[in-house]
C-alpha cells in the first residue's frame, strides 16, 4: 500500500457545488490526486458505506465533508467519518453554516412534507403517500433515513477540526487548504481556513466608498442599474461585504453583484445576521421613526437577506417551533 496521505470527500445535504469546486481544481486536481490517495468520493467513484465501516478508525488522514445535516443517515455518516478520520474538515457554506438548505429552518418537517407531498401544485399524490422510516412488503423491510425538523451544521453533530467557507469554496481555497493541512505545521484546530477580516479589505470598489456612508433607500439588484466600480452599498444595494469574511477574492462584486455573505462572519462575531443587520441599520440616514420604518421597509426579507447561508449557525438557529 502507498503511504500517500489518505483523503476522503463526502457530501450530505448539499447541491453538489462543492464537489464541483473539487473538480474545478482541474489540472491542480491531478497534482493533488497524485499527492494523495482518495479513499472515498461517492460523487466520482463507487464506494459503499460498509467499505468505510471496514476501515480502521483514524485511518483516513483528511476528510472533506460538504453539505448540511438534515437526515439521520447524514448524521450517522458524519459520526462514522469522524471516527475514521484524523482530520475532519467542514467544507463549504452548508457544512460550515448550514448554507442554503439551512433556510429550511424557517419551516419544520411537517410543513415541508405538506408542501412537497401535498400542497405543491406540481404534486400528484392521490394516495397521499408520505415518506416512512420503515417500509415492509412481502416480509422485506426497507429503511429510509429519518428527517429532522432542523437542518444542522456539521459542527453541531460532530467535532470539526477545520472549516473551509464558501458557496462553493474557491478551488484556490481548497488547494491552499489541502496544502496547509498536510504540511507539518497545520493551523490551530477549529480555525476557518480563510482570512479573518471582512471582505471590504479586498473589495475592488473600496476607494469609491464615501467617507461617511448613509443610505436613504435599499434597492434590489434585479431592479437596479448597478454602476460598475462604485461601492455597491453606497448605491443602496444590500452588500454584506463589510460583515463577511474575505477570501473569495470578491468574486460576486467583480461580477457586479452585492456580497450575500456565503463566507460567513469573522471569528469575533457570534451571529452573522445580527451583526450585518446592526451595521446596515447604522447607515440609515434618519432619526424619525416613520422615516426609519419607510427605509427599512425597502429590505424585503430580513431573515433571507441576513441569514441566507447561516441560519442554522445563528444564535437562534431556526424559526420558533410551535410547542
Amino acid at each position, binding site marked *: 500500500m502507498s503511504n500517500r496521505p489518505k483523503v476522503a470527500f463526502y457530501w450530505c445535504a448539499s447541491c453538489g457545488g462543492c464537489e464541483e469546486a473539487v473538480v474545478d481544481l482541474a489540472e491542480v486536481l491531478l497534482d493533488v490526486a497524485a499527492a494523495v490517495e482518495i479513499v472515498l468520493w461517492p460523487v466520482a467513484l463507487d464506494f459503499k458505506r460498509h467499505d468505510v465501516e471496514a476501515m480502521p478508525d483514524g485511518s483516513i488522514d483528511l476528510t472533506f465533508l460538504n453539505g448540511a445535516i438534515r437526515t439521520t443517515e447524514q448524521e450517522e455518516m458524519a459520526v462514522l467519518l469522524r471516527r475514521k478520520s484524523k482530520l475532519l474538515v467542514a467544507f463549504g457554506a452548508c457544512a460550515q453554516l448550514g448554507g442554503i438548505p439551512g433556510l429550511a429552518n424557517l419551516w419544520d418537517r411537517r410543513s415541508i412534507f405538506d408542501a412537497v407531498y401535498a400542497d405543491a401544485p406540481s404534486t400528484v399524490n392521490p394516495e397521499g403517500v408520505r415518506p416512512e422510516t420503515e417500509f415492509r412488503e412481502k416480509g422485506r423491510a426497507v429503511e429510509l433515513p429519518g428527517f429532522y425538523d432542523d437542518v444542522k451544521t456539521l459542527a453541531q453533530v460532530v467535532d470539526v477540526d477545520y472549516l473551509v467557507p464558501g458557496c462553493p469554496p474557491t478551488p484556490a481555497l481548497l488547494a491552499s487548504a489541502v496544502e496547509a493541512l498536510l504540511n507539518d505545521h497545520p493551523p490551530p484546530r477549529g480555525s476557518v481556513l480563510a482570512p*479573518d*477580516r*471582512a*471582505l*471590504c*479589505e479586498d473589495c475592488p470598489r*473600496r*476607494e469609491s*466608498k464615501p*467617507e*461617511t*456612508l*448613509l443610505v436613504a433607500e435599499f434597492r434590489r439588484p434585479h431592479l437596479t442599474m448597478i454602476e460598475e466600480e462604485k461601492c455597491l452599498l453606497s448605491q443602496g444595494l444590500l452588500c454584506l*461585504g*463589510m*460583515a463577511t469574511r*474575505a477570501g473569495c477574492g470578491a468574486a460576486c462584486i467583480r461580477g457586479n453583484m452585492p456580497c450575500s455573505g456565503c463566507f460567513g*462572519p*469573522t*471569528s*469575533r*462575531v*457570534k451571529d452573522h445576521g445580527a*451583526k*450585518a443587520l*446592526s*451595521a446596515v441599520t*447604522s*447607515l440609515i440616514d434618519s432619526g424619525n421613526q416613520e422615516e426609519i420604518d419607510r427605509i427599512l421597509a425597502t429590505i424585503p426579507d430580513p431573515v433571507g437577506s441576513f441569514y441566507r447561508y447561516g441560519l442554522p449557525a445563528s444564535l437562534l438557529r431556526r424559526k420558533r417551533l410551535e410547542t
Partner: protein
Amino acid sequence: MSEHKSDIRTGVYVCHCGTNIASVVDVREAARHAASLPGVEISREYKYLCSEPGQALIRQDILERGLNRIVVAACSPHLHEETFRTAAAAAQLNPFHVQMINIREHNSWVHEDKARASRKAEKLIRAAVRRVAHHKPLERVRVPINPAVLVVGGGIAGIHAALTVANAGRQVYLVEREPSIGGHMAMFDKTFPTLDCAACILTPKMSAVKAHPNIKLWTHSDVTDVQGYVGNYRVKVTRWPRMVREELCSGCLECVAACVFKEAKVPDEFNFGLSKRKPIYIPFPQAVPQVPLIDMENCIQFRTGKCKKACAQACGDRKAIDFQQGEEIKEVDVGTIIVATGSKTFDAERAAYYGYGTYPNVYTSLEIERLVNACGPTAGRVVLRNGETPKSVAIIHCVGSRDENTNRWCSRVCCMYSLKLAHLLKEHTGAEVFNFYIDMRTPGKGFEEFYQKLLNEGVHFVRGRVAEVTEWALDQSEEGKLVLRVEDTLLGLVRRIPVDMVVLSVGMEPHADASEVRRLFNITCSSEGFFLERHPKLAPVNTFTDGIFLAGSCQGPKDIPDTVAQAGAAAAEALALIGAGYMEQEPNAAYVVEDHCSGCGACSALCPYSAITLDAGARRSSIHPVLCKGCGTCVAACPSGAIRQNLFEDEQIFEEITGVLTHG
C-alpha cells in the same frame, strides 16, 4: 485577553446595608451561593461594606489571599463604585478588576417577595462573577482642564459663583440674558428674616462683577452653542444688539433724558408695568452695566425710520448709539460651566379663582416687592391702582404650589417672603394684614423667630387655603371690596373676609425654556423640570455631565442663603477641577483592533464626537481615546467585531447574559 481560567481568584462581597438589603435578600445564602461559583476564592457578607472596616476587609483579602477580581453586591454603582475601586487600588489591585452590582435600588428596595428577590440577587452575582473574570487592567485617561469658567445666569447665584472663581484668580465669562445682572434679588426691597435691604447687599456685588479684572460680563446675551467635553468646552455666546455700544457708553444716560418721548409711555418690565419707561432706557437705576438699550418695538426710529434721533445727538461724539448694531457671536474655550439660570414665578392668571388680571387690586408678591421698594414705581408708597392706601390686605400663600392642578411642589420661600411682605405692608400702610396659609413652613436660621415677631405684630394668620376672591358683596360691609371666602380650618368655620388689596404669594417654577437649555448643556431635568443634580445628597451641585455644575433655583426652589451657599459650592467644584489641572476619565473608550479592521467605515457615521477616523490608504479605522465618550454605539455596529470597548467588552456582556439566565 483575560488570564487563564485557573488564575482567576475572585472575592465576592455581599453588603447588608444595615437592613436595607438584608431584610429582603438572604445575604447569607447569597454569599454561600457565590462561594460555589468557579473562580471564587472567597465570599463574605458584611453589615456595611462601604464603611472603613468593610473596605479594609476587602483590602486585606486582596493582599492575604491574592485575590485578583472583586465583586461587590451592594447599592448602585453610581453611589459607591468609586469607593470600592479605590479600596482595590489601595491594595495594589487594578481598580477596574472590581465589578459592582446593585442589589439594593434594583432589588431589595423594589421587591417584596423575599425568596425571589434572593434568587435574583444570586443571578446578578453569578453574572458579575462570570463577567469580572474577563476584566482587564486599565488606566484612566487624564484630560487637561482649561482653567476658564463659564457662568450662565447673572442672578445672585451666578454673581456669587463668578466672584468666587474670579477671586481665586481664574478667568470667568458671565452670561446674562437680561440687559442687567441682578436677577430676582434686585427687585426685592428687604430680605427675610433679617430684613436687611436687598439692594445694599446686592449692589456692591454687582459692581464688583463689573469691575473685576477676571470677569468678562456679557449681558443681553445667550449661550447658543456648547461643544466639547469636561475641561475643553467650546462655547458660542450670542450678544443681542442693545443699539447702544457698551464699550463707547459712559452711562451718563443723557440719551434717555433726551429721547423724543417726553414722558415715558412703555410699560416697564422690571416693575411689571406698575410704572412706565421710554423706548431707550436702563432696566433700573442700579443696573449693571450702566448702559441703556433701545427696544425696537417702541423706538420711533425703528418703527418709522423718521426720528430726529435726539438720543444720538445727546450722546454727541461718543457715538455710542448705533442704530445699525447687529448681533455679535463670541466664541470662548472654557474647562467648566456653572449653570445658574434661575427660575420664574408662577403665572397667577392660571389660578383664575383668585381673580388676578380681572380685579385690579389683586397683585402678585413680586409686584408688591416693587411697590414697597424705595426705588420702585411709587418710591415705596404702597397704594392701590386708584392711588388710595389699602386699609386691609390679604396675603394668600401657596399660589401655584402644592397644587396638583398647577405645580405640586412646595416652593420653599413663599411662607417666609409672605411674612416679610406682611411686615413691610403693615409697616408702610398700617393696614390690617391677613395671612392665609396651609402649613406655615419656617425651617431656617431665624425663621421661626421671625414668624413669632409677626404674630406679635398682630398680623392675622388664618390656616386655610382661600377658595375664591370675588367682588360679590353680601352686605354694605363688603361693598366695593375684594371678598375672600375661606375655611378657617382651626376654627372649623367658613369665613368671608373683605379686603382692599390681595397679594398672591406665587411659587417658583422652571423657566419655560428649561428643556432647551438642558439640551444645550446636555444635562438632565427632574420631572418638575428643574435641573437634576447628580445625587441629591452626595453630589448636589454636580450634573451627570462632567464639568457642568448647578447653582441656585434652576435646580429647585431656594431662598437667597441656600442659593449663595450652593453657588459657592459650585464654584468650589469648578476650582477643584482647575486646581487638579486634569480630570481622570472613566476608561471606557472604544478602540479598534487594527488587524481585525477591514476599513469598511460602518462606524465613522455613528460617532457624534467625530472621534473615529478612517485611514483610507491603510484601510483601517482608528478612535481618538480622549474624544471618545464611550457610548459604544460603534462597537455594536462594527460588522467584523474589530471595535471593542473597555469595561464593556462583548465577552463581558455575554457572560453577564449567561449569568443571569443559567438556572440554580
